[in-house]
Structure formats: structure tokens, C-alpha cells
């Protein structure tokens, strides 16, 4: 019989030759695969933990209120009004905004004049997620009592009322517990304002969508509030904390990248040396292939594909082992995106490491190795 020819080696045949070559050098293939696995494992267990620590630190800084802006009219002379709060809330880069009226002292109505005085503020705007509430939503003029204020007022339940010296007591319909940056409210009561109220307010609390926006947003908020006297306002932002956050993120990120790149570079050199040694040992094999009709690109493809497969196997083993180790040490798995990025980089490093030896093998003169002395 005579053979039909497609003119060039097929993709599957090339893949078959690749696996044959990998199998023909089990030790070299295994060493290259183990180096790639070690690269993934080391990056995950070192940089992965650093990234995790960075996320934890940043998360803690964010919890402490890096995004908050507080604008206070201490003497009530700036002319801030509640009607501006919805407009501030609608600004881009604003997560939420609250307006607070002047703090009035109130006492437990059941105790009378002998009760401990506790601050009560009228609140304008939707309560954010940072304020968790119990009981029913208060109607205008009704109050929620803060978790600390309940003890101060001597309340067992968030019910009853308080009075501020006027004839009509304020009904308590529930309680709240606020976290940063509104934690200071827990020591008092929040009285719901009437819808569309245009009452005077004494402070505005704003949360930016990200710490980087705080600086720019502060000016925009003041412009929307449109105070009669800007000099009467005092502005407190977490800019310093935002700067610390940026510095922490930058330093830890830089450290992580340097560490990962160093490990990757060392792995790249080791794999290159391993492959170069393997290619040198099989120079007769490459010479024979060239004599049988393999082109230089065929040789490069065979070596590169071989190390793509080895890289995939090594990266799979290394990332799995690294992730398990991180989980055992920290109780949390490394982020999927980071793990995948490490695996892909390691696979690319494996192929990159194969290129130089592959070109050396492809450009070596076949006659030099085929000649019999």
C-alpha cells in the first residue's frame, strides 16, 4: 500500500510526539514538573499569606472608618438645613449621608426629673446598614434608643418614653446599635424627622464609596450643603487613615509582588537549566527527527508543548498543595483569582523556560550528532 500524505505533521500527532518525549525522559519531566509545583506552592504559602494579611489589615482599617466625613456646625451659625441631605445622598461616590439635629438632653419619662440626662438627636435621612435596629420603624417624632443609652436611662426594654422638659414625651419604639463611624450615637436616642423637613441641622455624616474619594468628596459635600457661613463649619475626615491605608496597601503589595517575582524567576532559571540538560541529552533524538523531515518549528513546538503539559500538571499539583497548606495554617483558602493567577504564571514560566532550549535543539546542526566516527 502507499500512504496518503497531508503534507505536514498533524496537531494530534505532534501532541503524541510531545507526550512520547516527556515519557522518554521521566526524570527530567518530573524534575521540571516538581519545580513548577514548588514555585506555585511557595508563592501561595508565602505571598498568598501576605496577601491575606494585607486584606485583613485593610479590612480592619476600612472598618475603622477610612471613608467617613463629618461636617459639624458647632454653634449653629452656619445655616445647615435638612433639605440638603437628600441631595448629598445622591452625589456619586457617596454611600450614604445623614443629618443630625442639635443634641437635646432627655430623661426617662417613667423616672422623672431625677433621671440621668441622655442626648437625643433628630435624624434626617435613611439609617444606613451600620445602624442595626429592633422594633418598628419610628414615625416622625418617635425615637429609637441606643444600646448604651438604654442602660443610662434604666430601660430593660426599648419601650416607654423620654421627655425633654416639654409637655409631650417622645415615644420609644425600638432600639439601635451603630458601628463605626456612627458608634458615638449609641449613647443617645435618634428621633425620626418629619419627611421633607427643612429643619436646621448641626452635623452631617457622610460615607464615601472608597477611601480614595474622601478628599475630593469633602469639597463637593460642602458645596451641596451650601452653608451661609463656611467658616463656622469644622470638617473631620479620615484622610490620615486613608493615607495609612494606601501606604499599607502599597508596601504589602510591593512586597508580595517582589516575593512572587523572585520565586518565579528562580523557578524559571531552574526549569530552563533542567530542560537544557534534557535537550542536550536527547540531541541525537532531535537530529534524527530533523533528518526524517521535522522542521525547526516542529522541534520548537514539541519541546514547548511538552513543557506546557508539564507546567499544567505541576501547577495543578503545586496550587492544590499550596492552597491546602494555606488553609491548614490560616483556616482560609487563598483567593481564587490569586490562585489562578499564580497557576497561569507558573505555566507560562514553564513554557518560557522551554523556549531557549527548544531553539537550541531546533537550530543544532543535525549532521553533528548523526555522524558516526
Amino acid at each position, binding site marked *: 500500500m*502507499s500512504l496518503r500524505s497531508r503534507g*505536514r505533521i498533524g496537531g494530534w500527532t505532534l501532541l503524541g510526539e510531545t507526550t512520547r518525549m516527556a515519557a522518554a525522559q521521566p526524570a527530567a519531566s518530573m524534575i521540571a514538573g516538581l519545580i513548577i509545583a514548588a514555585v506555585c506552592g511557595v508563592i501561595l504559602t508565602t505571598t498568598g499569606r501576605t496577601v491575606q494579611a494585607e486584606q485583613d489589615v485593610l479590612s480592619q482599617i476600612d472598618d475603622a472608618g477610612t471613608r467617613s466625613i463629618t461636617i459639624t456646625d458647632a454653634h449653629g451659625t452656619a445655616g445647615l438645613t435638612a433639605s440638603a441631605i437628600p441631595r448629598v445622598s445622591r452625589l456619586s461616590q457617596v454611600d450614604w449621608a445623614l443629618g443630625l439635629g442639635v443634641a437635646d438632653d432627655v430623661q426617662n419619662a417613667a423616672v422623672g426629673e431625677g433621671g440621668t440626662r441622655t442626648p437625643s438627636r433628630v435624624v434626617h435621612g435613611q439609617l444606613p446598614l451600620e445602624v442595626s435596629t429592633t422594633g418598628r420603624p419610628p414615625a416622625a417624632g418617635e425615637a429609637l434608643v441606643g444600646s448604651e443609652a438604654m442602660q443610662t436611662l434604666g430601660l430593660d426594654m426599648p419601650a416607654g418614653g423620654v421627655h425633654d422638659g416639654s409637655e409631650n414625651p417622645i415615644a420609644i419604639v425600638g432600639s439601635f446599635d451603630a458601628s463605626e463611624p456612627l458608634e458615638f450615637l449609641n449613647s443617645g436616642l435618634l428621633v425620626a424627622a418629619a419627611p421633607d423637613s427643612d429643619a436646621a441641622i448641626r452635623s452631617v455624616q457622610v460615607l464615601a464609596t472608597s477611601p480614595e474619594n474622601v478628599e475630593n468628596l469633602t469639597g463637593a459635600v460642602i458645596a451641596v450643603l451650601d452653608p451661609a457661613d463656611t467658616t463656622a463649619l469644622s470638617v473631620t475626615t479620615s484622610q490620615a487613615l486613608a493615607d495609612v491605608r494606601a501606604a499599607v496597601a502599597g508596601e504589602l503589595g510591593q512586597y508580595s509582588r517582589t516575593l512572587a517575582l523572585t520565586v518565579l524567576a528562580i523557578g524559571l532559571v531552574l526549569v530552563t537549566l533542567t530542560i537544557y540538560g534534557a535537550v542536550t541529552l536527547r540531541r541525537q533524538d532531535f537530529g534524527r527527527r530533523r533528518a526524517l523531515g521535522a522542521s525547526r518549528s516542529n522541534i520548537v513546538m514539541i519541546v514547548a508543548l511538552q513543557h506546557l503539559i508539564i507546567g499544567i500538571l505541576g501547577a495543578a499539583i503545586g496550587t492544590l498543595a499550596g492552597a491546602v497548606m494555606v488553609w491548614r495554617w490560616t483556616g482560609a483558602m487563598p483567593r481564587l483569582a490569586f490562585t489562578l493567577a499564580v497557576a497561569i504564571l507558573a505555566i507560562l514560566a514553564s513554557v518560557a523556560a522551554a523556549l531557549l532550549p527548544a531553539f537550541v535543539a531546533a537550530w543544532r546542526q543535525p549532521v553533528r550528532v548523526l555522524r558516526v566516527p
Partner: protein
Amino acid sequence: MIGTNGLHFSYTKGGTEIFGGLTYDFPEGEVTVVTGPSGSGKSTLLYLLGLLITPTSGTISYDKRSVSGIPDRERSHIRAQVVGFVFQDAALDPTRTVLDNVVEGALYAGSRRREAEVRARELLESLGVRLRETHRPGEVSGGQAQRIGICRALIKNPSVVLADEPTGNLDRESAEVVLAALSDAASTGATVVISSHDPAVVQRGDHVLAI
């Protein structure tokens, strides 16, 4: 038909040149034996004809087309499609089975593996080594290895067969089998070129080129 025209070659720049402007046509369907003393360039001429190296000056032609200066990609393509190499030491891959070694000769021409395996078994049968198809090269004798090498060279029905000292390490009986196989290839129309200094081989040639 392949040929040379004004061929000169030197392994190093400014080194000793061989062939002295050789012009020769190797006829189709016949066996040409290239002979000469050691170091005269018998193997080198085969490598030049097989486009593994390029002449210092002069040309190699395939079907009257000069192929000396063509890019490596095209030379590889010609080797894959047209040329069958037989090496002095067989040059089999020790990690493959005998069958797989023979099949390898057809892969770079783009043949399908299954079809190549059928053809490989036919050739192994005809050269008396079919029973060894699952063995590794290290498990066969030198004569059997060379027959396997010939099967690999012939699997793609090449129009040019280049055999470099194919009987150099063989006993008389094995050498006869190998030479008969090469003669058979010539009888099907292939241009067969054998390098050898063995008088017995020289006698079997239709033409003798002494260099």
C-alpha cells in the same frame, strides 16, 4: 532525479574543501554507490543530497530545480516528503517500539498513524522483522536494527533513498538482506544512493561514483 553541479563543501570557513566542483546526476530507478577512502566525504555528500547541510558553492538539484539555497522550512518539507534516510548505526529511538520507530518515518510527511502502522507492518514482514515489532531497539540485533532502519526510510515510498554505510556493521547475510531491500526500492523507481567502501556493496551498484 537528483544531481550536483560544481559542488564544493567545507565544514569550516576557510577549511579544506572537498568534492572539487563535483557535477553528477543520480539516475532514477537505479542504485548509485558512492565510494572512496575514509574522510573523502562519502557521508557528507549524502547529507548534502539530503539537504541537511548546504554546499559552500555549487548546487544540489531535485528534478532539475536547485534546492541548495531554499529556506530550511522547504528543505525540511522535501526531506519529509521525498527523502528516506538510512543511517550507518540505524539511529533508532531506544524509547520507542520497533513498530513505532518505523512509523516515525512517515509522521513528518503528515501520514495518519493508523495507516502508517499498516504500512510499517507490511515492510517489517517483507524484511523478516515483523515478530520484533513490539520490541525495543535494544532487544534486537544489529542486522535487525538496520532492517528496521530501512523500513523507516521506505515507509513513505520516498523517491530518494540515501543510505550511509548501511552494511558497515553487519554480517554478510544481514548485509545481503539490506542491499536487496535497497535494490527493490530502486526497482520501484526511487533514486538510491549508497555510500560505502565495501567492495561487495560497490559491485551491487548500477553506477559507482568514486570521490
